């Protein structure tokens, strides 16, 4: 049967209408878009960097050094612990990138040594025999740590690159140890690289409780300054986005006091004297309290000099608050419960697990955990991008025009016209699909679209040629159409699936702009299975019922 059932017709029309709806945000003016819901505004195709201009970096994290450093620290801790437990040892060595080897003086002390090591880190994999003990991190632990390092690096990069909040960089993990950083709209990467190198400034200050107690009208002595809290800044961002934008865009950057004075977010008075700086912080992580129901807490460790300074300051200020300032914000101000000596401490509070993770990340974000090497860099100037857009558009329009012309000449205005209409609907579907996926349109992606134009009418060619054959065999117009569609279907599906295989593999193996090509080609091939078969069939069945032709004009 050529005719579609009523529900099929409705489904086809609804599907097409939906595609129009989702492709629409690409062409709507900003004024209209602003009044529409956010999820709908999101349904747009992003221009790839090669079209809009910008910089693309692939960075590789040096995870091996991170591991070695960790092993060295471990060997130090083990050495200390063995000494404390009075277990004599000959030597403790680091096997680069693998393990720590402990050589005992006395084999009989093995059990005691292992127990001591368990105190240092119970998750270590312990092996070896006799007087040697080999300590390695478990695969699970290594994997988790790798992921942590990359996630942390991404977060730090985001803070550094997007300090102004206006450039919307794309920063994603790629593979095991890579980070892809894309920054649209910039051409000179020197400044960007300087930013990548830039460290966030982390400092610990005591809160001036006298001023804090006196309320907002208090006089601020010269030893003290006002610093906005993180919650305060976020509240400001919500309640007064304009002020937030002003702060982010200010050049030179505003100091914390200036922000407090001008915009009056929630601020805390803190002493200017820095107790410990971020350079002395070795690590911070989210964990759970041992007792009291295991509340989420943040634990941190200082290096030796940081530990001493911190010990002295906390001992003298029990019951007061200690503010942790990152750049221009106080990210947390916990109350000192007791003197914190021995180089490590915890921050308790009413945190959720997610909050502790975020805070730990922020604490660590002073320094990049692993050095990042640029292994691929591509920059495209905006005018080069504009050239590419122009070339791509012209090629796409001319290509589409030529294909339509060819179809009209060979299959006549009715059949050729329907196929061309279906092809254009197919383009619309591709645009809608890319909008929903939030895919990037690259120059190779445009090439993929042009190819899709050429390939998507191919299925109609197969069907039409079959219809011609059936017609020549003496079938009535209606029957020729019905059998043509039916019998051409296997060839249509087989021939397109092979191209789809190539498209999918290209997406899997390809990178960067090639993915853009694979995306548009694959989407186009998928959607055209719908337009070339069902959509044109619907048009033709309407046409047949309307004209009741005695011979097909094909």
């Amino acid at each position, binding site marked *: 049967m050529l005719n579609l059932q009523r529900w099929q017709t409705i489904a086809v029309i609804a599907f097409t209408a939906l595609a129009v709806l989702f492709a629409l945000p690409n062409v709507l003016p900003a004024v209209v878009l602003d009044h529409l819901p956010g999820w709908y505004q999101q349904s747009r195709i992003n221009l790839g960097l090669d079209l809009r201009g910008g910089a693309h970096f692939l960075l590789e994290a040096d995870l091996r050094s991170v591991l070695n450093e960790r092993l060295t620290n471990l060997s130090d801790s083990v050495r200390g612990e063995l000494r404390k437990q009075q277990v004599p040892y000959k030597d403790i060595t680091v096997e680069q990138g693998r393990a720590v080897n402990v050589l005992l003086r006395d084999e009989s002390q093995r059990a005691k040594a292992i127990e001591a090591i368990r105190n240092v880190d119970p998750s270590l994999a312990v092996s070896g025999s006799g007087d040697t003990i080999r300590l390695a991190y478990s695969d699970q632990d290594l994997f988790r740590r790798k992921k942590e390092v990359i996630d942390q690096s991404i977060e730090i990069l985001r803070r550094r690159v997007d300090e102004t909040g206006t450039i919307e960089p794309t920063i994603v993990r790629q593979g095991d140890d890579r980070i892809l950083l894309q920054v649209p709209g910039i051409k000179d990467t*020197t400044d960007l*690289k*300087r930013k990548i*190198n830039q460290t966030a400034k982390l400092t610990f200050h005591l809160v001036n409780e006298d001023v804090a107690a006196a309320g907002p009208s208090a006089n601020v002595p010269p030893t003290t300054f006002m610093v906005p809290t993180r919650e305060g800044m976020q509240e400001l961002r919500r309640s007064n986005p304009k002020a937030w934008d002003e702060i982010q865009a200010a050049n030179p950057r505003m100091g914390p006091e200036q922000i407090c004075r001008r915009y009056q977010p929630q601020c805390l008075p803190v002493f200017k004297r820095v107790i410990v700086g971020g350079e002395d912080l070795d690590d911070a992580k989210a964990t759970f309290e041992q007792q009291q129901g295991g509340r989420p807490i943040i634990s941190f460790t200082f290096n030796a000099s940081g530990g001493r300074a911190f010990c002295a300051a906390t001992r003298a200020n029990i019951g007061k608050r200690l503010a942790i300032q990152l750049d221009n914000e106080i990210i947390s101000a916990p109350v000192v419960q007791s003197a914190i000596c021995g180089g490590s401490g915890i921050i308790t509070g009413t945190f959720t697990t997610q909050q502790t993770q975020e805070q730990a990340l922020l604490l660590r974000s002073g*320094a*990049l955990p692993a*050095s*990042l*090497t*640029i*292994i*691929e*860099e*591509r*920059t*495209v*100037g905006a005018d*080069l991008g504009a*050239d*590419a857009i122009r*070339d791509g558009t012209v*090629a796409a329009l*001319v*290509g589409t025009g*030529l*294909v339509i012309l*060819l*179809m009209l*000449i060979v299959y*006549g205005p009715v059949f050729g016209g329907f196929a061309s209409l279906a092809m254009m609907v197919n383009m619309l579907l591709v645009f809608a699909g890319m909008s929903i996926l939030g895919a990037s349109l690259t*120059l*190779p992606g445009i*090439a993929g679209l*042009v*190819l899709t*134009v*050429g390939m998507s009418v*191919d299925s109609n060619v197969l069907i039409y*040629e079959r219809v011609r054959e059936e017609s020549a065999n003496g079938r009535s117009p209606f029957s020729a159409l019905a059998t043509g569609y039916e019998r051409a279907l*296997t*060839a249509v599906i*087989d*021939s*397109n699936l*092979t191209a*789809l*295989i*190539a*498209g999918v593999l*290209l997406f899997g*193996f*390809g*990178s*960067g702009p*090639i993915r853009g*090509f*694979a995306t548009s*080609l694959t989407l186009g091939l998928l959607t055209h299975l719908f337009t070339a078969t069902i959509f044109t069939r619907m048009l033709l069945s309407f046409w047949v019922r309307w004209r009741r032709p005695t011979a097909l*004009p*094909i």
Partner: protein
Amino acid sequence: MLWRPHHLIRARPNFDFLGKRKIAMVLSTVINVASLVGVVVFGLNFGIDFEGGIAVQVRAKQGTVQLEELRSTLGHLGVGEVSLQEFGDASTALIRVQRQEGNNQCVANADKVMKRRAGDGWGVKPGPAATGDVEFTAPRALDGVSWRDAVSRVGLTVQERQLPRGTVNVAKIEMTPEQRAEWCQQVAIKLVEDTIGNNYELRGTESVGPKIGEELMRNGILAVVATLAAIAIYVWFRFEWQFGVGALIALLHDVLCTVGLFVLLRLDFSLTALAALLTIAGYSINDTVVIFDRVRENMRRYKKMGLIELLNFSINETLARTLMTSGTVFVAVLALVLFGGPVLYSFSIAMLWGVIVGTYSSIWVASACLVYLKLRPEQLRIDEEKAEKAKA
């Protein structure tokens, strides 16, 4: 009715396609062997995606690009082999610089860039050990933060713990030789930028380090192999094994022919070229499948027909659509070749050639393979008997 449709081919033609299969085989073999020899002898003109290195698109601030002058300036820069080509129009050019090794020449280049950008008091030299370490000197003592800004002038990103402690005027940055090699790409870009920046505007730069190049190459080869295998297996499952083998041989033929074109025209073999290869593979099989589909249908219908006759018959029956499907893609790709701009040129030319080769191979390679693979021996015998009769 406005106008009547124009049939590409009026009635069903009756060409003896497979009668020419020996000529086709010779032709295909010659082209494929030539392509292979070309790849081995002349090599592919690998783009920086695979080779690593630097590509810079420049535009003359005034007038046209002075290729000769540029060539001699950049040739003596100490960045190794430099190649230039006009890119698009006469005022723009593409400069390609070979992959930089992390040797002492590169450190000397960094020294030059540092002096030019920061002043004569600055310097860069290799560290004392044979690792990748590099030593920076400044005219005055700097703290860690200032060092960080200073080294970014030569494109170096460093981690805090690599920076010197305290305020010093010599900073030793520890690096592995591999890290230094990656950084050296950045140095070369800066050097090129400094050297020609007065007269030329840099419109876009690309640098690919040694590591990523090798990886892209490996992935590329894997992608081609996987695609060919997947398509062949699909055809095998949907048809019979002879069809699968025929399709695979036709695919290999198309890919090799296209690679041959890259050798012959010295086209840039980049990631987009690879995309072209895979797309050609996916596309050229379209026509093949259309013919195979008809062959399968006719085999059920005409059990007494000779194999060659049946194949010829099927090819002739599907000839109009084979030409038309190729035609639509051909005109679309032609638009890309003519208007797609310089970036897509290699890709488009390859695709255009691929469409032609793919159509040819569907008929003379894929279908001819069915004869050589003895798809239906009993039917093949009918052909032979007929040939005998004709002779007698």
